[in-house]
């Protein structure tokens, strides 16, 4: 873009500079002038069908759609004249005339463009006395998506997205005129790894997710930015949750994960695996300290950590290198990895520091990488040479500290159990329940990435720092706190001092 000539124009009296080839809508946005729109999406081909974004351009007789009209030197654009406001009102009146107005039961309510724009640009009384068209309201179109054709405004964002982004093109527009409707061909449903984005980009409540329908209201949700931990891409996400944790049985904390714009990493999209990561935050979680697989009443973190420190101390300095094994993972943040490095390598002088992560899957050529850990580059940057431990390398240890439940993905459970049985002290630090739980002396419930702040470095080397998006449960701690606590108990300088 920087190579393009820049042109000067006036938008609502503001002098604006924009690169040649920029749409008026975008140029206005860059200047802080927001032009309402339904069909326009910065990542999708221009369709110009909703007619909501029309503006007045001096010298032109008609209102022009600002999504398709490009900036030109000296253009004088007005975005909120009487004529423009009338046109917007008319578009809203038309859309609402054929809209079911079922906002009270619509999952999009509260974040619906039609609703928002009506408040801001419409506010006219309905003139429609004729009955509106009746259409299919609950059409399953695949991947847990439900299409409500009465709510659809035919912006075709969904159709264009599927053709352009995953390139699968499952949706089309059938019929014509007022009978036009979005649909799938026969029994060929939407079936690709990016389907959830359809819910994000639908400007109204026409495409909703079974996973979210009727579960809560948009306005009850706190939206916090985070970075997706489910592959090496590190897509920007928004974690949408309710406060009030812990929840009653059956209630949810994180209701959904949505895509957050980040041009450097994921554009506007996330994959379904990442979106489904909401389960990773709330489901199958450890919430309490456990011994031998069962919660122990009255066991405090302090005591439990002291047990770990004590176990470590039982191994004499010269034998630590061979006698203590640690298994880390690539879900740890750069900050945590640095702490681990100082504690285990510099501080305790361990040589048996291994890594176990989720098994690689296949890359989809879009966002999803083969690597299913978020901070592989961070692991390298921290100076680790990550490798899986062999069974006998673990078995030979006197003390074993395992971070994450992933070891069981790589080693046969029975063999693992046998090997573990011979280790005098073994501790598991895991966010999720798993086969290792019953093998560990103590299981420490740790935080998931959304509950932490820190930095990840993605497969392309992009460094992303994120803040805590949801608070962990009372009994859950981040690995950073655990590592710092251990260092403290072992009287090791968390800042990287020597072992005493």
């Amino acid at each position, binding site marked *: 873009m920087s190579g393009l000539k820049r042109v000067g124009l006036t938008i609502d009296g503001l002098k604006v500079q924009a690169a040649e080839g920029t749409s008026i809508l975008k140029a206005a946005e860059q200047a802080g002038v927001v032009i309402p729109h339904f069909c326009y999406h910065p990542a999708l081909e221009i369709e110009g069908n909703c007619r909501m974004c029309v503006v007045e351009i001096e010298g032109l007789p008609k209102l022009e759609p600002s999504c398709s009209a490009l900036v030109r030197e000296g253009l004088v654009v007005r975005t909120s004249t009487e004529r423009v406001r009338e046109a917007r009102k008319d*578009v809203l009146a038309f*859309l609402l005339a054929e809209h079911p107005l079922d906002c009270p039961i619509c999952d999009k309510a509260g974040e619906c463009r039609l609703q928002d724009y009506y408040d801001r640009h419409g506010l006219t009384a309905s003139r429609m006395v004729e009955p509106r068209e009746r259409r299919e309201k609950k059409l399953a179109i695949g991947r847990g998506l439900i299409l409500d054709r009465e709510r659809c405004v035919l912006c075709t964002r969904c159709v264009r997205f599927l053709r352009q982004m995953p390139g699968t093109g499952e949706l089309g527009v059938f019929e014509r005129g*007022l009978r036009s409707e979005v649909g799938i061909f026969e029994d060929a449903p939407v079936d690709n790894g990016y389907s959830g984005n359809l819910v994000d980009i639908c400007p109204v409540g026409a495409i909703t997710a079974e996973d979210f329908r009727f579960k809560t209201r948009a306005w009850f949700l706190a939206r916090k930015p985070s970075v997706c931990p489910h592959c090496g891409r590190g897509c920007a996400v928004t974690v949408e949750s309710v406060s009030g944790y812990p929840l009653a049985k059956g209630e949810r904390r994180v209701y959904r994960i949505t895509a957050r714009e980040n041009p450097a990493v994921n554009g506007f999209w996330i994959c379904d695996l990442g979106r489904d990561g909401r389960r990773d935050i709330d489901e199958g979680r450890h919430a309490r300290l456990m011994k031998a697989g069962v919660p122990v009443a009255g066991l405090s973190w302090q005591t439990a950590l002291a047990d770990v420190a004590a176990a470590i101390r039982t191994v004499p300095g010269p034998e630590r290198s061979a006698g203590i094994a640690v298994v880390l993972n690539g879900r740890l943040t750069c900050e945590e990895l640095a702490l681990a490095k100082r504690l285990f390598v510099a501080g305790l002088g361990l040589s048996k520091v291994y890594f176990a992560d989720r098994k690689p899957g296949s890359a989809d050529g879009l966002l999803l990488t083969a690597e299913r850990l978020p901070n592989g580059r961070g692991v390298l940057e921290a100076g680790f040479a990550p490798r899986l431990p062999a069974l006998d390398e673990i078995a030979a240890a006197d003390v074993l500290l395992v971070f994450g439940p992933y070891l069981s993905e790589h080693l046969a459970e029975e063999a693992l159990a046998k090997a573990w049985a011979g280790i005098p002290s073994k501790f598991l630090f895991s966010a999720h329940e798993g086969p290792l739980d019953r093998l560990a002396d103590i299981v420490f419930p740790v935080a998931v990435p959304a509950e932490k702040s820190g930095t990840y470095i993605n497969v392309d080397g992009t460094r992303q720092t994120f803040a805590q998006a949801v608070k962990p449960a009372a009994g859950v701690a981040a690995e950073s706190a655990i590592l710092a606590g251990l260092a403290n108990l072992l009287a090791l300088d968390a800042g990287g001092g020597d072992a005493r």
Partner: protein
Amino acid sequence: MSENGVRLLPLDDDSWRLEAYLRRGGYEAARKALTSMAPKDVVAEVCQAVIRGRGGAGFPAGMKWSFVPQGGAGPRYLCVNADEGEPGTFKDRLVLRRAPHALLEGMVITAFAVGIRTAFIYVRGEYALVSGRLEEAVAEARSAGYLGPRVLGTDFGLDVIVHHGAGAYICGEETALLESLEGRRGQPRVKPPFPASVGLFRSPTVINNVETLAAIPQILAHGAGWFLGRGVAKDGGTRLFGVSGAVRRPGIYELAVGTPLRQVIEVHAGGPPEGRSIKAVVPGGLSAPVLKADEIDVPMDFDSLARSGSMLGSAGIIVIPDGTPMLDVLHVTARFYAHESCGKCTPCRIGTSWILKAVRRLRRSGGSPADLDLILRLAEGIRGRTLCPFGDGAAMPIRAIVTKFRDELERAVAR
């Protein structure tokens, strides 16, 4: 039209045959262009003749050609718009049936002028049988060397493919036509880019109406001055005026551009049948705002009709006789646009149907003058607010009927 002896539409029965066309001097204009003129001189000649698009928009054809970028290695295309569907319009049908070689010769000249080697004729689906002669003419012309790799023995080649639509008025809009020709829903494209630079298969494309192209040979044969002299200052040539509705002799009349509407109706088409009188006239296809009986002393050229608040459009004249309830005319009009809206733009998709619903209600159960205001308001919500001219084409005739016949409509709905 017999003056000067030149007619686009010949009257003899075998006129559509190559032999008959050659007898009338057919393909001589193409020969002249291909063997003695440079392409840019052909464009200049056609520009000078001011032949305005006969499909309805009235854009000067020569100027349209001149928008095609010079040079460039890729293909360019000619699309013939034979998607005649504007209600009250049936002129292209006659050209296809009676003078297909005039169209083909016009295409040869146009293609030569613009550097095109492939042309498509997009014929509306309902004309599948009508276009039988066209397809025969293409075959005849190809085997006689008027089309094909070496047109008239020159290095210039032109392939012509006849393509059939499948029932969609909107495909007469040029970018919808391109979409349809590429095998998609006939929905207009966002402009710019204009077809002259990015058209069919993303290549520079000229799109002209059948009648426009069929008249091109006359310009080359007789000169721009002669052609322009047959029309009016900024609108040259003759037009095929189609007259239907309440006249004694409905049909196509080839007359000079600028011939008064009243004269076309009363002299050429014989006026209303015995005992009937004219109540209103739609002068240029259904999209042209209706004229009242006292408004028909207007010359039939683009600018004059625009000044009278209507448009020449496709020059399809529909004569509405006395006694016709204008509520019925409003209904037919509203129904047409609701049926043919492609559904792409919000105002047109919903607005045309809303208008139809409102009109239906008025017909069913009466109503009040306020309902007429609603219809006007809805039409205003469509006018100038859509991607393509269909929106205006729907809004303007609706508005004209309601405003010009308001009293009658109020009485009708209040009954």
